[in-house]
């Protein structure tokens, strides 16, 4: 059965199969994405604007701000988890995943 994904409550969270699985307000480190001038941007996700799936990877569009330099911006498809055997496994926001960052052409 297809995984149901949606953004709800003004972008507060990502629903995966009717469960609140990814909240806003976590800080995600970005080493590859050209988000700001910081070597590693630490971006607090203020609100999600879209969610999608590419094969088994679940990614979001979101607006956020680097907590170190204050740069505000939009993230275009940040990977937040994956679906395996029908179950969603969220990524730990604190872990760096350069291969899965927005703007990484390897992906």
């Amino acid at each position: 059965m297809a995984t149901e994904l949606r953004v709800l409550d003004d972008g507060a969270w990502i629903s995966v199969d009717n469960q609140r699985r990814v909240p806003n307000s976590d800080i995600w480190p970005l080493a590859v994405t050209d988000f700001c001038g910081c070597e590693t941007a630490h971006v607090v996700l203020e609100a999600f604007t879209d969610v999608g799936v590419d094969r088994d990877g679940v990614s979001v569009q979101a607006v956020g701000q680097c907590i170190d330099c204050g740069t505000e911006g939009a993230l275009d498809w940040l990977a937040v988890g994956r679906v395996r055997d029908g179950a969603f496994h969220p990524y730990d926001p604190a872990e760096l995943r350069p291969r899965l960052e927005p703007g990484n052409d390897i992906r």
Partner: protein
Amino acid sequence: MPTDVEQWKSELYGTDIREHIERFAETGWDSIPEDERDAWFERFKWYGLYHQRAGQESYFMMRIGPPNGVLEPGQFRTVAEIAKEYSTGPAANPEFGNGWLDVTTRQAIQLHWINIEDVPAIFDALEDAGLTTMQACGDSWRNIVGCPVAGKDEHEHVDALPTIHELNDRFKGNAEHANLPRKWKVSVTGCREGCGQGDINDLALEPATKTIDTDERSSSNNQNSPGSGDGEAREGFNVRVGGGLSRNEPRFARDIDVFVTPEQAADVAGGISALFREYGDREDRYNARIKFLVDEWGPEKLRDVLQDEFVDFELHTAGEDLRSEYSYNAGEAAGKHDHVGVHGQPDGNNYVGLNVLVGRIGADDALDIADAADEHGSGEVRLTQRQNIVLTDVPDENVDDLLAEPALEHYSPDPHPFMRGSIACTGTEFCSLSIVETKNRQVRYARWLKDNVELPAGVEDFHIHLSGCTASCAQPQIADISLRGMKTRKDGEPVEALDIGLGGGLGEEPQFASWVTERVPADEVPGAIRNLLANFEAQRADERQSFREFVAARDDDELAELVEPEETSYDDPFMHNTKRTWYPYADEDSLDDSPAPASPDGEPLSADD
């Protein structure tokens, strides 16, 4: 493509939701199909039920939205009794205990920790008292706001209450207006001071006077027509559309050059609501509020479409407004700032405004206040947009006895300015969107400021609004000091932080705050406010210059230098990621320790059932 939310709404919305709430209440939380929960929780909002944030599954916030915040005699007691019986959670709040009600910035009341199983009994109790939760949340007409003392105010141009009740009666439960693209916030104000805050609503009716030819009925009048010259000055309302504070996109409502008599108000308001229904964006909820349609069209086109398609009589052009008289939150040191204190009513009685710090009243305290309202006044209690309450119809001979009531020691009619000026939204205690803890933090801020900061001479009112995110439920952009939730890094660790904005307010020339200093660690904010006020006192032109005038005379860089965040004796227990707790104040606060979902008796239910 319509959103999922629009799809759910098109399938079932409005009053049809009620029977399903009752069905699930009968069969229990577990009976809500797991694969339908997003849809049902979205629909429940229409009946004022909002599922609390992650970690608090099975618990709901319930909002009760009385028109204009007027709770008729007996109604406040009913809400207090409901709060005492049903609004308790699995852990206490260290400031407020367990069982309280929250007065909101839109003159509503919110209860938390409500179980679905208890909702029918609560609905029955509310309806027996003449109250409802209908359309308190969701994409429809919310409770109409206005001057909290409408009909009992010495500064009134026109009594707006009859118009508010007519709009409420026509558009609550009205299938034609039940499913709008987004929420629909309306303000109707009749007082001369501007305290209805119409500028920040989707639709604002503001007091005005229009000379209308006596030989014309309202259906044919036009300012540009010659008429007979025998004009009759009519009191009514000018219409503005498209205000709102959310999403980092604040807008003041735009003048669409329309005057309505009280008799026309419902037809024109319904026309604008129908216009929004037909032309609002249903494909992108972030672009759905009517403020964005006004951005796109401009007020002239909106007026033209309203005239051509949604109103079957000729609209009047705007009348003479009273905006130059607006003193409410207008930035003048001697202006009107709230409705706290003892004030005369035109009928010789008094209304007594009580300060409610961050809007939260313990259930037992609320019962005591209901007793006091019954004993010393008419029993009516009104809610204000500053999260305060007003007891009305107090005869002169009862005022001293009312002021001597023990409950008024805490809910004071003469509070310290830092207690009086504090507003806070719900925050991460319950809200999914908020980034930081708010209510308890603002209580701690207010107490510390009261104990440690001397206000500059002549400053008797000072508004500090704390909002947990850009949704702006605490209306931060119209405060003297605006605080907005964010994160930053301190000593190498991420911590809760606040952006600091200055210079916001309403009045004839409303102004949104400018965010001059961002990402201040939350424990350094009280020091920043202390230093800013000291700099204001040292540098202002003279003692008559208000804080807003002081801010307006400086650019953002100058102001940023005056803020000076600093650690002080203030201690902030909420610097960690409070959103990643099930309840920020629980002894064992991790999400894994959450007792939710739970039955009404508090027994945890297996999430896997």
